[in-house]
Every structure is written in structure tokens, then in C-alpha cells.
């Protein structure tokens, strides 16, 4: 009884130092989030509003998407629509090719990751440079992000030091984060200044004004769009919100939830192309419009991609981003993976204890744990249910369905206490991997009751009035 997630988690956990660091470091981010959230008296009201605004927008998305595009076009933006990843990548490449682009500087975008854009563009001969420090590190290492806000959270400073020695010629053995960040600053400044085009994701798209809003701490989205002649923005349909008043709700929630900051350093609003420049929006569906029709799971479209659910998830913190088979890990990733392809990503559904902490931190009230529970109910019909779990469940139903059998079983359960150790703690018994079995009691409660051994003490509380029905 194992899943790809549980097997990968086992490997991550085997490195005790690494998993302890990962767990504790992300917990610190959760604590920072808590401190900031507790300092805002209207926090819970904000979360509710955030959810309601998104629900409204999603259920009027045709109208808002059209309004957003119209406004943007009136502002001089070139608007493109992509049904899927392939169309998105082709549109982006088409724009770049028209400008004879050799080098593209990119700021962090999970949507382009979803579309595998970098691979596609590199195959077309374009030099794609990720400019978020964490993204640049993992791009150099040729590995995917392990967290959606802190993509290189699983990499140690010594590894970055060694990597930069090789790639950027930094001093041997120097892994001081300030030193390494300065080296990256110099290296990436050269990239910004020599790029032909810049690309960003989009945190919020404002229907009323046609603005797109990008939030970063490093300033890479801004550096990447202040020099090149072309700026391309990849926008997932679900990023659209009605107006700037709504944006006020989201900018208050996003950074507090994501990193425990009162705001990101830069909250940049792009409305019109600069003098002599081009601004392109690519509005991407890639399955999103279908999700709207999925009554059980459409609430995932409210997600702000803040990763608070990952930072609080006790399973994610101890198993790392790579233990999940979908490119977005953690509670939101489990759900988005299942929406993408239940056949392909069912292995992640085991990575949840149903502790519900994710529901409580989500700044858009996405009911992540409830949705994972729902997906589990679907596994059997998808042919993805673990056969042993199925047998266990059927067996339990049979046992619990027959009180007489149940009581007989309770009677004989203590025999397990006396079984030879090797029959109890073998490879088949996952419980026994790190735990001893509970000791079954001589007499169950039912047996005690029937024997009249569940007795009253004879004492009565004097202060309590007699209860009336």
C-alpha cells in the first residue's frame, strides 16, 4: 500500500537534517504569516470578501474577460487568446520571432511553467533567462521549482555557492547568501540590459481598467520590462478581478499570506505600452473554463498562488516539493493536478491527513482539504484506488455492519497482543514501521457493559441543576 508520493516522501525523510531544516524553515514562514494576519483585525472579513469577489468574477468570467480585453486594447495593448499551452507557446514565440528576439528575460510565472514555455522557446533557439534569484538557481541546475513562491527552498547555500563558482565565477568556497546574491545581481543586470524582450506573469488582471498587476520583492519583473522594447504577459483566466477596489482586498492578503510581509516590495501596475514599445497580453485558458463547470472543484479557481497552504501543510513540509508528481505541490497542487488529469496525478491524493489547516490559511477560502476528501471518493471509479485499502474498507464495512461479528472480534482481538513479534511487525504491516501496535484490552467496553461492569460512582454534582429535556 504505497503511492508515488509516499515512496518519494520516504526518500526525502531519510535525510534527517534536510527534512528537519525544510520543515522548520517553512514553519517559520507560517509563523510570520500568522503574526501579520493577527495584526489585521479585519483579517477574517478580508478572506471572506476575497472569496466572494472571486466567486462573483468566476461566475461572470465571460463578461469580465471580455471587458478586460476591450479595455486593454483601448489602452494600446495587443491582446491574444490561447486555448491551451501549445497555442500560448506559439503566440509567445510568434511575438518574439517578429522582433527577432535572441534573449528573453523572464520573471517568475507558474503559468509559463504549466505550459512548459522555456523548453519550447529554447528549442526555437531563444536564450531564455529566468531572473528571479530562486528561479535562476534552479534553471542553472536544470530542475523544476519545489515550491511556487520559494522555488529553490530545497537547495542549500553550499550548493548555490558551488553552482555560482561554476556558472558565475564566484570565489571558491564562499556560500554567504549576501555575497552570492550580489554576484547574481551583477550577472542578471547584464542580462536585463542585453535582453530583447521581457516577460512576466500576472498576479491580478483588472477588468475595469485593463491593467495587469505584478507583485515581486526582487524587482526583477520591473527590471525586465524597463529596458527591452517588448513586454509579454502570460495571464491565466482566473487572474481577472473586477476593479481596483477589489485589488485593495487582494494586495492586503497576498504578501501577508505568502511570506508574512505587509506588502511585496513592488506592486507594479502595467496599463499602456511605454514610448516606442509593445505590450502583449496572452490570456490563457488551458482547462480553466472547463473547471468552472465542475461544481465540486471549481473553487480552486479562487487560488491566489500564495503558497500559504504549502507552508502550513504538515505533509508538504516533511516530504518536499518533489514528492508530488504534479508541478505544483502541496494541497493546492494535489487538487490542480487532479483537475488536470486524475489518471496521471492520482498518486498525490494520499499526501493529506485531512487536518484542514490549509483551509484555514487560504486567503481565498478555497476548501482544499474537503476537495482532497472528494477526490479520494473518486479514486475507485477511476480505477486508481489502492486494492489493499479497498479490501480493508470492504472488510471493515462487513465487520461493522454486523454487531455480533464485531463483538466477537472485539472478544478475540486481545489475541493479537500475544502473536509472535515477527508476524506482527513484518513488511506488510505499515503501522509497525515506526510504531508498536496498541494493546487490545481484555474486555471491550461493550463486554464490560453487558457484564454490568460499567458502573456509576454514586457521587453527584451538587451545583448543577437537574437537566430538563
Amino acid at each position, binding site marked *: *500500500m*504505497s503511492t508515488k508520493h*509516499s515512496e518519494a*516522501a520516504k526518500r526525502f525523510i531519510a535525510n534527517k537534517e534536510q527534512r528537519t531544516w525544510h520543515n522548520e524553515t517553512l514553519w517559520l514562514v507560517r509563523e510570520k504569516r*500568522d503574526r501579520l*494576519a*493577527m495584526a489585521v*483585525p479585519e*483579517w477574517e472579513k478580508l478572506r471572506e470578501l476575497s472569496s466572494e469577489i472571486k466567486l462573483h468574477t468566476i461566475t461572470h468570467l465571460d463578461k469580465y474577460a471580455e471587458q478586460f480585453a476591450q479595455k486593454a486594447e483601448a489602452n494600446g495593448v495587443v491582446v491574444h487568446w490561447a486555448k491551451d499551452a501549445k497555442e500560448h507557446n506559439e503566440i509567445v514565440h510568434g511575438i518574439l520571432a517578429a522582433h527577432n528576439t535572441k534573449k528573453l528575460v523572464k520573471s517568475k510565472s507558474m503559468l509559463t511553467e504549466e505550459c512548459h514555455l522555456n523548453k519550447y522557446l529554447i528549442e526555437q533557439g531563444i536564450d531564455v533567462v529566468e531572473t528571479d534569484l530562486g528561479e535562476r538557481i534552479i534553471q542553472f541546475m536544470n530542475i523544476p521549482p519545489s515550491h511556487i513562491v520559494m522555488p529553490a527552498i530545497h537547495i542549500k547555500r553550499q550548493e548555490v555557492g558551488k553552482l555560482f563558482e561554476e556558472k558565475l565565477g564566484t570565489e571558491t568556497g564562499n556560500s554567504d547568501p549576501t555575497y552570492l546574491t550580489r554576484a547574481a545581481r551583477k550577472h542578471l543586470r547584464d542580462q536585463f540590459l542585453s535582453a530583447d524582450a521581457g516577460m512576466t506573469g500576472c498576479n491580478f488582471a483588472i477588468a475595469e481598467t485593463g491593467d495587469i498587476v505584478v507583485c515581486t520583492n526582487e524587482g526583477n519583473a520591473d527590471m525586465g520590462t524597463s529596458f527591452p522594447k517588448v513586454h509579454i504577459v502570460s495571464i491565466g483566466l482566473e487572474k481577472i478581478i473586477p476593479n481596483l477596489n477589489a485589488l485593495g482586498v487582494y494586495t492586503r492578503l497576498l504578501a501577508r499570506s505568502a511570506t508574512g510581509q505587509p506588502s511585496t516590495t513592488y506592486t507594479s501596475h502595467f496599463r499602456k505600452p511605454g514610448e516606442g514599445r509593445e505590450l502583449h497580453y496572452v490570456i490563457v485558458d488551458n482547462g480553466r473554463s472547463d473547471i468552472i463547470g465542475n461544481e465540486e472543484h471549481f473553487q480552486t479557481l479562487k487560488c491566489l498562488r500564495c503558497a500559504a497552504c504549502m507552508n502550513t501543510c*504538515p*505533509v508538504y513540509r*516533511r516530504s518536499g516539493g518533489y514528492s508530488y508528481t504534479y508541478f505544483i505541490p502541496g494541497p493546492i497542487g494535489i487538487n490542480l493536478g487532479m483537475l488536470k488529469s486524475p489518471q496521471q496525478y492520482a498518486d498525490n*491524493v*494520499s499526501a493529506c*491527513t*485531512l487536518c*484542514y*489547516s490549509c483551509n*484555514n*490559511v487560504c486567503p481565498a477560502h478555497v476548501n482544499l482539504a474537503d476537495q482532497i476528501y472528494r477526490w*479520494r*471518493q*473518486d*479514486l*475507485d471509479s477511476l480505477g486508481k*484506488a489502492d486494492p489493499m*485499502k479497498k479490501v480493508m*474498507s470492504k472488510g*471493515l*464495512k462487513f465487520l*461493522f455492519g454486523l*454487531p455480533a461479528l*464485531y463483538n466477537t472480534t472485539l472478544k478475540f*482481538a486481545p489475541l493479537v497482543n500475544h502473536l509472535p513479534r515477527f508476524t506482527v511487525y513484518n513488511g506488510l504491516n*505499515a*503501522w509497525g*514501521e*515506526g*510504531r*508498536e501496535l*496498541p*494493546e*487490545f*484490552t481484555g*474486555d471491550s*467496553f*461493550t463486554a*464490560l457493559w*453487558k457484564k454490568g461492569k*460499567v458502573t*456509576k*460512582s454514586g*457521587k*453527584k*454534582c451538587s451545583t*448543577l441543576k*437537574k*437537566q*430538563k*429535556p
Partner: protein
Amino acid sequence: MKVGLFIPCYINAVYPEAGVATYKLLDYFGVEMDYPTAQTCCGQPMANGGFEGEAVSLANKFEELFGKYDYVVAPSASCTAFVKEVYPKLLNKEQHACQTSGKIYDLCEFLHDILKVKEMPGTFPHKVSIHNSCHGVRELNLSSASELNIERYSKIKDLLKLVKGIEVFEPHKADECCGFGGMFCVEEPDVSVCMGQDKLKNHIATGAAYITGADSSCMMHMQGIVKREKLPIKFIHVAQILASGL
């Protein structure tokens, strides 16, 4: 007022003393009780594992057995939450309005919110660390969830503080999951045990002699680790502490 006593399966089999304490305690507060002996399990283990369908017949049986009481009380937050939250949906599919969902209470909830007890019978001169179980905190609202910006409270702590001689603590990361999670604990044994070890470290660091709480399932999982690793802490269901002296 007549209460139907629900003693969930693993308490029945492994921790009957928690059931006995529940009975004595409710009797002490003048509650009239029945124990329907044909009861078995609420069905949560199957449902959380992805086999909700296997729980439907159990829900029907539960309704039959407990529908007639004014209240149903169980010394288990998780099972109570399952009946409360999931039964209406399961039974709704069968065009059956759920009777028990609105009147089931975890023991602590019942003492705190319905009986509104202000004293406890005995003394328990020990340091205890409260295990705030996930379903107790985030489904039944037995205490304020650490993630939410709401007024801080804890019904279990309120009740325990009525016991003489007790010293009550809470671990660091007061309501982080212990890693039990029903079938999770055997499907993801490595993460499960790792979470349990971390949770125990925080409980032990409080200096408490006992871990106590409203969910025996979490405690069964942690107890398994304590036994395997021979860790210096004991377990006791909150009902047993509250029933001290009875």
C-alpha cells in the same frame, strides 16, 4: 433529557476505560444514559480512505440506533465531527434527513456548551500537555484554530482547569497534526511516523507527564511511537482526568 452514549470502535476495543470514565462523569452530572449495544463504527476510516459508500449503511444503522435520543455524546472529537459533517451528505443522497447530525456532541463540547459545568469532582496532581486534535480544533471548534484571527479559547483547557492540582500545558505548534490521519497512517507511514515523532518532541518539551486529549485515535498513533522508541510520556483520555475521583 436522555443521552445515547456512542463509544467509537477503537475506544471500545483499546481504550474502554475512556468509555467507562465518560459514563461515570455524565452520571455525576445527572445525565441519564443509554448504551445501544448494537453500535459499531461511524464509518470514518473508510470514508477518509476514499470509500464513503461503505459508510452509508453504517450511517443508516447509526440513525436507527441513536435517532431517538435528545443528545448523542461520544468521547471522540473526530468521530463526532464525521457524524456531524458527513452524515447529512451521505443520507441526503438517500433522501433521508439526518437526525443525529444536529444532536451529536463530543464529550468536552457537551460538558462545556450544554451542561455548562463549573466544577469537577476530583484531583489530578500532574502536568498534562493537551493534544489539540485537528478535527477537534478545525471541525468541532473545541479551541480557536491557530490559523484564524479570532478570539483565543479552549474548551478542553477550560474543563481541565476545573480539576484540582492539575497543571495544563500546550505544545509548541499547538494544533499541528500528529500524522495519524486514518488510513493515511498506513498509506504514508514515513510521513506519518515523522509527524508523530515531531509532535511528541513538542509534547515532551512541555515537561508534562501525560498527553491528554479528546481523540484516542491520535493518541493511539503517538502511543505506538512512544512504545517503540521508549519515550518518557504517558497518555490519558481527557474523560479519565475529568472523572478523577469517581
